[in-house]
């Protein structure tokens, strides 16, 4: 009963956050000065008709928002317009129809460009997260188990170094190493591969994925190892572990039945909080390896000042992170009986 209520509350909160991001996304691109569509129409060399054409094309002829009478006396926007004919309304309406605008660079709909790339990013992040969590947990458990031995110190030192590596730089170093060891340097697949049998195609993708995934895994591995280690050391020094030991359980049984689940709790929280950082890593890795995902879309859009792509990618990433965060919260509720009754 209370659990459903808690989940509903979380869900409502996530929806609210998504709305906030949608509004933020709209105003960022309207308030900040950089958009060339608007910068361009201020260019004195352009003829009046051309300016007008551009304005209509990008919907800039419409008022930004209408005024909200309830907000008076704060004057926001124009009061003499149809609220359905404002830039904001059109932006929201387009969003509900899955339209994110047209790319300045390719003239293709942003939604189409991003849809192709979304799954590549999910693939990269998914593989990297799973690997770094599995290896990180294993290393963390090992270090905690062997606490205060040289094996432990070694694992901690390696984790601290891994944590300190700038993601893109590690990518560059691995790329450098890979270039002399026959790994593909860019992209997701070798051109022309699509005519090959499926199994071979997958093998090709896996080879392309190897270095980006390795980079990703190393970068996030350190943090997960450190958290797992300290959380497991904390749990293993709890009184109930002593109880379990007094019960005559073997060390392995204690670890498996009394410690792991409890120690995973802080890790789940950190994974949830880290989802935002995860995306940051993906952007850098995709930029280095030209992996055709959302991150490299952002990287390319920055270089080409292709703002509709940037706007769409940001929105998509933010929403994905919010949803993933919600899922992590659910996992936490499922793991810890104490939150359920509160």
């Amino acid at each position, binding site marked *: 009963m209370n659990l459903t209520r808690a989940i509903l509350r979380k869900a409502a909160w996530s929806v609210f956050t998504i709305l906030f991001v949608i509004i933020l996304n709209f105003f960022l691109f309207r308030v900040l000065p950089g958009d060339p569509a608007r910068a361009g129409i201020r260019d004195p060399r352009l003829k009046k008709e051309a300016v007008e054409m551009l304005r209509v094309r990008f919907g800039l002829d419409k008022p930004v928002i209408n005024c909200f009478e309830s907000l008076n006396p704060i004057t926001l926007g124009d009061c003499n317009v149809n609220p359905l004919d404002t830039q904001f309304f059109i932006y929201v309406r387009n969003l509900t129809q899955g339209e994110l605008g047209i790319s300045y660079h390719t003239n293709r709909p942003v939604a189409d460009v991003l849809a192709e790339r979304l799954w590549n990013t999910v693939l990269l992040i998914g593989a990297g997260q799973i690997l770094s969590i599995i290896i990180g947990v294993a290393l963390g458990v090992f270090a905690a188990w062997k606490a205060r031995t040289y094996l432990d110190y070694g694992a901690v030192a390696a984790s601290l170094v891994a944590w300190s590596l700038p993601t893109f730089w590690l990518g560059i170093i691995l790329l450098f190493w890979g270039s002399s060891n026959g790994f593909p340097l860019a992209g997701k697949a070798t051109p022309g591969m699509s005519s090959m049998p499926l199994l071979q195609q997958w093998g090709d993708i896996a080879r392309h994925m190897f270095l980006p995934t390795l980079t990703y895994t190393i970068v996030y591995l350190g943090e997960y190892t450190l958290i797992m280690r300290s959380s497991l050391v904390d749990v293993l020094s709890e009184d109930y572990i002593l109880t379990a030991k007094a019960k005559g359980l073997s060390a392995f049984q204690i670890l498996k039945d009394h410690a792991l689940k409890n120690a995973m709790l802080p890790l789940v929280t950190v994974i949830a909080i880290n989802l935002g950082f995860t995306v940051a890593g993906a952007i850098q890795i995709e930029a280095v390896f030209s992996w055709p995902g959302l991150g490299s879309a952002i990287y390319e859009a920055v270089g080409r000042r292709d703002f509709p792509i940037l706007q769409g990618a940001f929105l998509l990433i933010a929403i994905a992170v919010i949803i993933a965060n919600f899922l992590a919260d659910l996992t936490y509720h499922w793991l810890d009986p104490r939150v359920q*009754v509160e």
Partner: protein
Amino acid sequence: MQTTLQTVERSNPLGVRFLGFWNTFKKSRTGVLGLVMLTVIILVAIFAPLLAPYGRLETVSISDIYKPPSALHLFGTDDAGQDVFSNFVFGARVSLTVGFFAAFISIIIGGTFGLVAGFFGGRWENFIMRFTDIMLVIPDLPLMVVIVALTKPSLLNIIFVIGLLGWTTTARVVRSQTLAVKSRKFVLRARAIGASRGHIISRHILPLVMPILVVQAVLVISLAILNESALSFLGLGDPTTLSWGQMLNYAFGRGAMSAGAWWALVFPGFGIVWVVLGLTLLGQGLEQVLNPRLDTHHLMPSRPVVQNEARAKPVPSQALLEALNLSIHYVNDEGRAPARAVENVSFTLNEGELLGLVGESGCGKTTLMLALLRLLPSAGQIVDGRVYFHGRDLTALSEVEMNEIRWSGISIVFQGAMNALNPVRTVGDQIAEAIIKHIPLYPREGIPARVTELLDLVGIAADQRDHFPHQYSGGMRQRALIAMALACNPQVIIADEPTTALDVMIQAQILELLDLLRKKLGLAIVFVTHDLGIVAEMCDKVLVMYGGVTAEYANVDVIYNDSQHPYTQELLKAFPDLTKPKKKLTSIPGYPPRLDALPAGCRFAPRCPAVFDRCHAEEPSLHQIGNDGHIASCHLIERTR
């Protein structure tokens, strides 16, 4: 007095505090290493013009593009024919500036938000924390990219964007620390004397939030530096300066990879790793000062029992459980002498008997109890003596053999107020676990009924079986622990302060329950407590411990009516007795000794009212008094004879 107070004023408490901090900090090798690494790079940044062989952004020669490292160019040259080492040295300035200033903004915002939310609570807290939650889930690097792309990528903009987006974790950390400090009793005490909010914040909250804020600042600086380098690498750096990230951007984007110019790619990144690693290590060191962790736990291998074979093996009696001349030390890593937690303690426990183990905190009673089942923490070591259970020497058993005895022969009731039950497993499940472990042939389908039966025995309703520990009250948790201890029909139960921290009536309920079970099941019980009243009410025999040694060991009646050790006598005088209205309570002056700093001679001598010269020079041995096993360790006994 006048003079003392003035000297105190003249002395500099801040200086004293800093010295104290430094003495703790310097013990952390990681912290010191981090501080050194950070100092080096800061010095490099400050003295950049002196260190750099070439000027800032000075093109040496257009023809010298991507020259490998040489005596002339320590780190080689880059795509524009500039000296990488010089750019590296000047780049340190940019990266550190961005890191420190952005972190400063984040810390100010996060600190203020956290403090206001935590201290004032209510609507403010609600608003701030909701906003923080939103900002926390919005991925920050993409947002930074968007904002910097839409504004001018100047250094100032970058600093502000990183600073204004990097405060969320700080706000959360500071808020929870503020809440924790605010709920402590000294804040309530300050309110009770009429202190204003400003006074409470400046004198009580800030001094305890500040250290956490410093650790957080170290973390935020390193994140800011990483974010700056990522932004620059993505092509959003200030084109008029050259940070390490931007050096990498240029090199990567302008063919260093294909030219094989590893130096242009390795060295700038190395700078970032150096700073971030230095900051991380420094943070770890500071954390260690704030929140010292021993990193020890219950699963670390325990030290082997020292078997002193030279000594004649004592002959076990017919008793059910017997400790013979048991000595336990705590060894420490720092080379100091081990703490002699328990020395030469013996007792016997027969079937159905109830032995009270009495003493104040730090007297070694818990250590002794844990040693019986070889459950000592990793620093603890049985250095002498033996424990016999049914005539079997427990100190000689392997860990696997010991696991057989644990719970099925001897079980423990820990303090329910403590975290003795696993919070994420149901109570019934934890009881069943013991049965499955020790009675593997017990029919699985019968286990739930057996668990219900055990819970019924201690007065817990069957429908509570599948509840989690946090759904139980303190008294019920204690009952559940008793039920769990009974699960495998042990002959001996060790009860470790099972009623401490419970209300008097619940305490009486638990004592009655234990007494009842003991009669019904014929249990032998070792009851560890500091409460002489409980001992008098329940026990057959009493072992009074002081400072790790036996003070007195006798039948309960002897202890209360004919005690021979001054400590027992004084302890009884200090205990309020409502049947004697005229009795004035006396206290024992001084405090129990610390086990790592024991006095010479008798351990009770510094507090003893009957002390004489010999007590300070010689440790008293255990004296037999009469024939019924009364033992006391006091020189007075020899004297009176």
